[in-house]
């Protein structure tokens, strides 16, 4: 009876502690030379560049859908002209960062978990250690750095595409020029909207990279474990992304950036 209730909590706390230690290790070893630039660039290409189509498509759909959904509510008040400013604020502050992070958690987090996990179960990581290569720096640090750097860029790219989708959405129900749309967008947006969004997406990227790497790096039980690690990487990353988002919103509010 005691195990049924305490085991999940104990496992959760144990995992949280291990991830924290893993993150600490990244911070301690990740920024020390020698630097793996080649692997960093390769991972940036895989994580950033290869995610562009998926992120762009998702962001475009989100921009379009949010605009179309918001239109009737604003139409009731005769405030359709507010659509660009309201949609842009929603997209830039919340929707694009979170959706992009979740997409990347699904695509990138799972691939990191599976890739490192399969290397772990096939003892390639042990082989790297034997050969004198630091597997943590080569495999983990490069991936975590790549996700941390690439996710904000993907979010900015997603913002642009989502706003363009919003522009098309606005023009589906009325006529608004591109110039007027972007003028209204930039009239509404402030640094307080953009910087928290970019900063939290840095943390989202870090979360995706560190959790994917951790789950892969701690994979056990062969190929079955690889699948579990990939799945767990996605689930835990998505969960932590929402927690980080909540914390970011609270901090932004405390700093009067809302």
């Amino acid at each position, binding site marked *: 009876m005691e195990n049924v209730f305490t085991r999940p909590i104990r496992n959760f706390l144990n995992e949280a502690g291990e991830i924290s230690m893993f993150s600490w290790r990244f911070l301690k070893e990740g920024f020390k030379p020698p630097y793996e630039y080649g692997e960093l660039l*390769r991972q*940036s*290409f895989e994580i950033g560049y290869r995610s562009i189509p998926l992120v762009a498509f998702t962001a475009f759909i989100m921009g379009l859908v949010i605009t179309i959904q918001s239109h009737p509510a604003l139409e009731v008040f005769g405030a359709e002209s507010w659509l660009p400013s309201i949609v842009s604020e929603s997209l830039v502050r919340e929707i694009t960062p979170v959706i992009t992070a979740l997409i990347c958690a699904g695509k990138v987090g799972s691939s990191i978990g599976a890739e490192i996990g399969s290397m772990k179960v096939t003892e390639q990581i042990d082989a790297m250690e034997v050969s004198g290569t630091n597997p943590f720096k080569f495999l983990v640090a490069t991936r975590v750095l790549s996700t941390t750097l690439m996710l904000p860029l993907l979010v900015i790219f997603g913002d642009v595409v989502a706003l363009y989708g919003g522009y098309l959405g606005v023009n589906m129900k009325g006529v608004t020029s591109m110039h007027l749309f*972007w003028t209204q967008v*930039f009239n509404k947006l402030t640094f307080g909207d953009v910087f928290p969004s970019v900063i939290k997406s840095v943390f989202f990227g870090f979360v995706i990279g560190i959790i994917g790497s951790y789950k892969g790096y701690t994979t056990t039980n062969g190929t079955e474990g690889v699948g579990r690690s990939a799945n767990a990487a996605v689930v835990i990353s998505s969960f932590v992304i929402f927690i980080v988002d909540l914390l970011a919103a609270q901090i932004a509010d405390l700093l009067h950036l809302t």
Partner: protein
Amino acid sequence: MEATTGKHIKTGVFVIVTLLFFIVGLYNIGGKRRVFESTVKLSAIFKNVNGLLAGNNVRFGGIDIGTVSRIEIISDTAIRAEFSIDHKSANYITSTSIASIGTDGLMGNKIVNIAPGNREGTSLKEGGVIKTLPLVELDNAMRTVNKTNDNLEVISEDARIVMNRISSKNSLWSVLMDTSVAGNVKQALTSISLTANNTVVLTKNLNKIVGGINNGEGSIGLLLRDTSFSGNLQHAAIDIRTTGKQLAHISGDLSEMSDKLVRGNGSIKTLIEDTNLVHKVDQAIIEFNSGAANFDTSMVALKHNFLLRGYFRRQEKENKSSSDKSNK
């Protein structure tokens, strides 16, 4: 190696393009907030800022020219709002300009509206204080709107009653809806027009007459304008009066005479009252005519008498000669 380089280039392009988007976005946002422009700090003191926040827009003539940079309480009845105003736009804010706090739309953010002052004002410099206008609070505005609504309700009710009366039978509306009225009105208007024309002609004639009268033409003109006429009229009246008196006197005499005729025993009474006298007179005239015929016969006989024939011939000659003289 080439494949790796290609990947690096693609990654680099992605990073650069995305960063360019980010920088352009930040520049636009900063441009709207005048982060990259030189600004002038001006301020205004309000009794109530009604939720105005740092970062709210400042407008001059409806154009965003700056933002609220700071709000601070300086006393229990005064709150100082400091504005960062675009350097170029600040030149138009003078010592007579007036700042007021409003709302961007019905539900929008608070904004500071600066109304232009008159030409007598001087441009405010760094640290200048703009005059303020008391805040128009939404509650007060809504109260006014509520009162207006009440009045509108009363007015609309009255209007409804009036409209019902107008649209009811035997009302003005029924007259207006009667199609024959238009024809009648048209005809009446034609008649009025003709009457007006006649009136014009009549007026002209009257003017002519009045002009003639004023000039003393005609009997009435003479009557009104001839100053000697009244004197003559007076004399005539006196003469009429005198004549009247005389007539009265004569009528008195006639009355007396008629009395005498009726009551007296004179020959005239006999002539008037004696009916046989007429026959006698007739008989006398007949006899006189008969006598005259006999006398003519006697005279003819005398003309043929040898004793008197010469006398008559001489007389004929004299008469003839006197008539010839007169003809010549």
